[in-house]
């Protein structure tokens, strides 16, 4: 780890000022400390934002707002969230370990960086870490990498489970910078790698995430998250699915479907959703709709299995969520 200056911001203005001078925000630290130790991240200054007042979980009749410094475990145990948005609680409890969920913040979860081994190995070529250096994964060990949203520059999978659930729910990221407050729909928040994989988000320079917000919807109440992985717990997804359904009189009225473990960003599946709406609920529909889950996929040398896996993951989760009381 390289030496750095450390300050603790007593309020938002000092945090923004520190960031304007080049400091990196730290909240839970579970990603940043790890990457600083590996020298992937080398900030000259770090500003601790844990004293800022973004700690509330505010569930109203029509919307949920979550402060960015709420910890993963806090959000997962919130009774209102568990009943109105089971997909959020499940995505969180299937993430990381109990210890890390007690540390990691919701804002930091959105900002976590890829788990690609070449990104984390400073001796390997990685366009995300060193723009222009190449991508060792494309011709290397890429079994866990993405099949959707990839480019010739980068094929790293987005690691967050929570972001997949939030993408399905059309959540909005609330940020503040020197020009005031901004609202960024999650669908515009994450950038696909394209030719600039080092630019991961559409955040203005020095912006601070203060919270996330989403509407309370019927598909939130009937929702759930499934995660398929190499071991049963404490592992990243090979494929995951966040599904929310509104079903009445045997028909699907509205559907929300997003997948993880397969995309360079959390991946919404509008084609699957369109195939579901106004159709009669049942196994045939789940299979037909899920057949679109890998549309546009470009498998790499070792991850072709994800094409079929993500379809089956979506099909299974459609059936599971439809079967909920």
């Amino acid at each position: 780890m390289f030496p750095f200056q450390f300050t603790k911001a007593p309020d938002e203005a000092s945090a923004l000022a520190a960031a304007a001078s080049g400091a990196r925000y730290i909240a839970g630290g579970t990603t940043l400390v790890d990457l600083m130790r590996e020298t992937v991240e080398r900030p000259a200054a770090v500003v601790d934002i844990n004293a800022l007042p973004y700690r509330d979980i505010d569930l109203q009749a029509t919307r949920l707002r979550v402060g960015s410094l709420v910890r993963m475990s806090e959000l997962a145990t919130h009774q209102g969230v568990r009943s109105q948005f089971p997909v959020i609680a499940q995505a969180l409890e299937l993430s990381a370990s109990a210890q890390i969920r007690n540390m990691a913040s919701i804002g930091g979860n959105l900002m976590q960086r890829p788990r690609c081994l070449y990104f984390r190995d400073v001796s390997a070529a990685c366009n995300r870490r060193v723009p222009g250096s190449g991508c060792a994964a494309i011709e290397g060990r890429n079994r866990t990498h993405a099949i959707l949203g990839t480019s010739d520059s980068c094929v790293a999978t987005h690691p967050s489970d929570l972001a997949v659930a939030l993408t399905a729910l059309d959540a909005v990221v609330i940020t503040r910078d020197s020009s005031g407050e901004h609202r960024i729909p999650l669908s515009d928040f994450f950038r696909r790698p394209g030719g600039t994989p080092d630019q991961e988000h559409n955040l203005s320079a020095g912006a601070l995430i203060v919270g996330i917000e989403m509407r309370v919807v019927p598909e939130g109440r009937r929702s759930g998250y499934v995660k398929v992985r190499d071991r049963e717990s404490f592992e990243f997804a090979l494929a995951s699915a966040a599904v929310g359904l509104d079903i009445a009189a045997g028909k699907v009225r509205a559907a929300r479907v997003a997948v993880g473990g397969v995309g360079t960003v959390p991946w919404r599946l509008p084609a699957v959703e369109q195939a579901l709406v106004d159709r009669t609920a049942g196994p045939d529909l789940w299979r037909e709709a899920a057949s679109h889950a890998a549309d546009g996929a470009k498998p790499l040398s070792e991850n072709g299995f994800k094409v079929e896996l993500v379809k089956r993951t979506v099909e299974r989760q459609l059936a599971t969520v439809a079967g909920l009381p």
Partner: protein
Amino acid sequence: MLAGCGEDEQANTATSSVVRVRINGEAREITVDNRTSLLDMLRERANLTGTKKGCDQGACGACTILVGGQRIVSCLTLAVMHDGAEITTVEGLERNGRLHPLQQAFIDEDAFQCGYCTAGQIMSGVGCIKEGHTGSDAEIREWMSGNVCRCGAYTNIVTAVANAARNT
């Protein structure tokens, strides 16, 4: 590996900080290089070596401690982030010479072989019991998945946590 955590190093005020914490009830004031993990501060500066360093990347759980009563991995957080914190390590579990019920359960159930992961398992188990995730063996296994045991003592660890939960 221990970059910046030795006390003999000349303190650079731009890149070091004073941390005031209560560790197992005792007030401590320690000047650390900003790079020092909470784990390294406990082991190398507070001389509490019960907390173990396994992977140093949050994957094994050997360094689990309680901060403000919540279990965390002390390797993935900086000591300077914990000014004012209340910290409990495995050395702080006993009361008046009597082991914590989970420590005793680990002995009674033979829940370890080499013992390297044990302090982390016990601290994590204390958190697991407090959080109420001991309803079944499967639930304990899921909520203890942040702690790896290379000897494979999992069966007896689960039994120890379940028994301690019943008797707490």
